[in-house]
């Protein structure tokens, strides 16, 4: 890193150490900057003149980028950073297709991506954006795609796991930032399914037989006339393969919840109005978003809509993507076990709460699920919500509510004896000032608008 007086005031992005050629840093006022090495600078100069790159910048597939001075770029800031282990299948697949599509266009103009990682994709709402401009470099003849293995481990195998086995890949991706090894994928995936024999079985076999021969193999490939047409053929195959992968899912508890839930339509409309009247926000979090009805109602520049059910989030994503929405970002997050800090020193991939604080939090039809379903004490839940330092719209459902009855029926009676409106209001009142309170028509649910004390 250069140590000019200007860069002395910059702070390094903790996740941007793997590729020292093009590091991301933040300016004192929070701008996203990228410092290029002399070599990366040459790549950037060539790249900025490429047609595919200019087009992708214009239509938003690549993150907004401008050159501030030679070797220093400034990027558009994405509204909220998210990680592949928070994306439903459809988002991971769209991120893969974006990456492969860009690679295909880049190859035609003799550029290549030096890696193949979903961490290079972020979202403007439901629209994927490729954010690592430093990943593009000029293609060197005789060399294969260095990111192919990474693409398999972090995109292809996780997608195959859900498509061919019905196993959700998010816990695997959260468990290992490097993804699933070819040898592990071989043990997990059925060899008769499309793409498994080559990308998985043969991949593992060649890897096992050729350990530590990287330099030798590269020389051999170069001498044999390895050319970009081979990479292009592989990318085309991968595009075709990934497009055809469809998620296999078990039954879901909450998909179609809105239809099945004992809500009066009138109650839902009052809830919507209550949310709309909660005031303007730059960033709102909708916790337990389900079909996103209230994410749509809230008056916010950006919304992060989270739900623990992958299928529910997938359905919301599909709808938003169809609408071309760039305001609501749907994420799979179990709030009783939200994304922790991961990677080097636990800061490379940050905790959910450390990626931009909301100024409004919606917590609708959620308290009973966490308090009864997950045995989370009111004080704990309210304490955590208080730590977000945001206005809060929260709904409480009484013991007589049919959903609460259903949840209580699954537990020993004594476990949740204290579950009731009084205890809830006491916990809420200790940490928040309640500004507004509205009982819904059914009389079993109450809405609160509260500000931190």
């Amino acid at each position, binding site marked *: 890193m250069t140590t000019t007086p200007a860069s002395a005031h910059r702070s390094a992005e903790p996740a941007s150490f793997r*590729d020292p050629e093009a590091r991301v840093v933040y300016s004192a006022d929070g701008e996203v900057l990228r410092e290029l090495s002399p070599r990366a600078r040459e790549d950037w100069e060539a790249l900025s003149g490429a047609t595919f790159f200019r087009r992708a910048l214009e239509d938003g597939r690549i993150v907004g980028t401008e050159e501030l001075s030679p070797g220093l770029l400034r990027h558009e800031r994405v509204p909220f950073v998210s990680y592949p282990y928070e994306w439903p299948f459809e988002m991971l697949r769209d991120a893969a297709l974006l990456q492969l599509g860009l690679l295909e266009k880049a190859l035609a103009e003799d550029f290549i991506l030096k*890696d193949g990682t979903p961490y290079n994709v972020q979202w403007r709402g439901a629209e994927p954006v490729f954010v690592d401009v430093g990943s593009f470099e000029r293609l060197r003849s005789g060399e294969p795609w260095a990111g192919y293995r990474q693409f398999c481990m972090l995109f292809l195998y996780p997608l195959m796991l859900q498509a061919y086995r019905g196993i959700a890949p998010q816990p695997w991706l959260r468990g290992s930032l490097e993804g699933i090894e070819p040898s592990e994928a071989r043990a997990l995936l059925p060899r008769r399914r499309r793409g498994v024999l080559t990308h998985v079985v043969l991949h593992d076999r060649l890897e096992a037989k050729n350990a530590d021969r990287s330099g030798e193999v590269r020389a051999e490939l170069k001498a044999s006339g390895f050319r970009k047409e081979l990479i292009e*053929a592989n990318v085309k195959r991968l595009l075709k393969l990934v497009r055809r992968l469809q998620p296999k899912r078990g039954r879901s508890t909450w998909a179609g919840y809105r239809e099945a839930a004992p809500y009066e339509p009138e109650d839902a409309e009052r809830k919507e109005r209550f949310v709309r009247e909660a005031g303007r926000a730059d960033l709102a979090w909708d916790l337990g978003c389900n079909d996103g009805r209230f994410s749509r109602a809230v008056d916010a520049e950006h919304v992060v809509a989270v739900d623990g059910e992958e299928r529910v989030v997938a359905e919301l994503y599909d709808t938003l993507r169809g609408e071309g929405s760039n305001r609501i970002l749907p994420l799979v997050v179990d709030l009783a076990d939200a994304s922790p800090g991961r990677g080097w020193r636990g800061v490379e991939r940050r905790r959910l709460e450390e990626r931009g604080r909301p100024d409004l939090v919606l917590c609708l039809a959620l308290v009973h699920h966490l308090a009864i379903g997950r045995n989370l004490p009111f004080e704990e839940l309210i304490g955590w919500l208080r730590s977000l330092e945001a206005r809060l719209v929260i709904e409480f459902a009484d013991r007589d509510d049919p959903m609460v009855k259903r949840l209580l029926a699954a537990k020993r009676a004594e476990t949740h004896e204290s579950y009731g409106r009084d205890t809830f209001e006491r916990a809420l009142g200790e940490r928040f000032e309640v500004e507004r309170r509205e009982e819904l028509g059914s009389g079993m649910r109450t809405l609160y608008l509260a500000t931190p004390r």
Partner: protein
Amino acid sequence: MAPLGYLDPGSGSMLLQIILGGVAAIGVTMKMGWRRLLRTLRLRRDDDDAS
């Protein structure tokens, strides 16, 4: 050879890219020669040539 990048592309993964090259790989395969390709892929041992 000069290092490829910041990632180790994996020797097995590089070799697989010949096979995944489809029609475009025919030229490479011919240039390498079938036996040499199998040897390079380590799917055939060096001493197999003697037989």
